């Protein structure tokens, strides 16, 4: 397989309002996503984006370019927190023999997540 033919895509800058909307939408009450004081107790400098929200950013880039029906599986590893103000860019990468990789980096170049995509028609579908 060749590398994913994905044009790098940058999501809108993360806002506290967007973070709140997302956790309300999936009914996740974990205060680490909304309460800076709680985040500090957890050793974090600020609230962090919910896991599915980060997955959704990766999925959004894939759906925008390939369509929802083309994406069968997505396996995301969260490598670092996403904070308010962060701008996350989704790019294609290769992982050894697993070519269908994506990488999510913030505006500082830090990798915040990596993922493996299975698309319709892939040999391992």
């Amino acid at each position: 397989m060749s590398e994913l033919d994905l044009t790098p895509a940058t999501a809108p800058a993360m806002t506290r309002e967007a973070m709140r909307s997302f956790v309300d939408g999936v009914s996740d009450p974990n205060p680490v996503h909304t309460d800076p004081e709680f985040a500090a107790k957890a050793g974090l400098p600020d609230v962090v984006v919910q896991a599915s929200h980060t997955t959704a950013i990766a999925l959004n880039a894939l759906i925008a370019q390939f369509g929802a029906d083309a994406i069968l599986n997505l396996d995301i590893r969260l490598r670092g927190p996403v904070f308010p103000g962060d701008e996350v860019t989704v790019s294609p990468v290769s992982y050894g023999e697993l070519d269908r990789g994506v990488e999510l980096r913030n505006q500082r170049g830090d990798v915040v997540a990596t993922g493996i995509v299975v698309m319709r028609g892939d040999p391992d579908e």
Partner: protein
Amino acid sequence: MNLETLGQVLVETDVVVEPDSVALLVDALGTPDAEEVALRLPFFGPTVGGGDSVVGPIDLSLERGLAGGQSFEWHRSFRLGEQVSVVVSVEDIIDKGTLHLATVLSEYRGADGDLIQRQRTVFVERKPPGEQAQTAAADHGAESGEPAS
């Protein structure tokens, strides 16, 4: 974490793909394709049965724990307003040195019983400092051939 929850079904219920909830996700994403994205992940398995439905039984500390990854297997998108059944279970939960790891599996089926989505979330929890010290001592004992006490 409570390692004895391995294999347990924690939630078995019906849920509705609420348009208002999907609208919140669309607002959060703020992109032209946001609704298609939202209809691929309108539920978070660990909280779909209520905020404490998984965190409580597996005894996950929110101050020492975080989600380390997620995987999705899609068979189709959810539909606005549809009622689906969901089963949430503890697929894996282990002690790994100074950490506990748990994989929470949620499976969503439509009214016809066909699978819509299989979703896994991996939680990573640091053990409390006291427990970490015990783990370190036990590891040292194992390495040096001494009995772990």
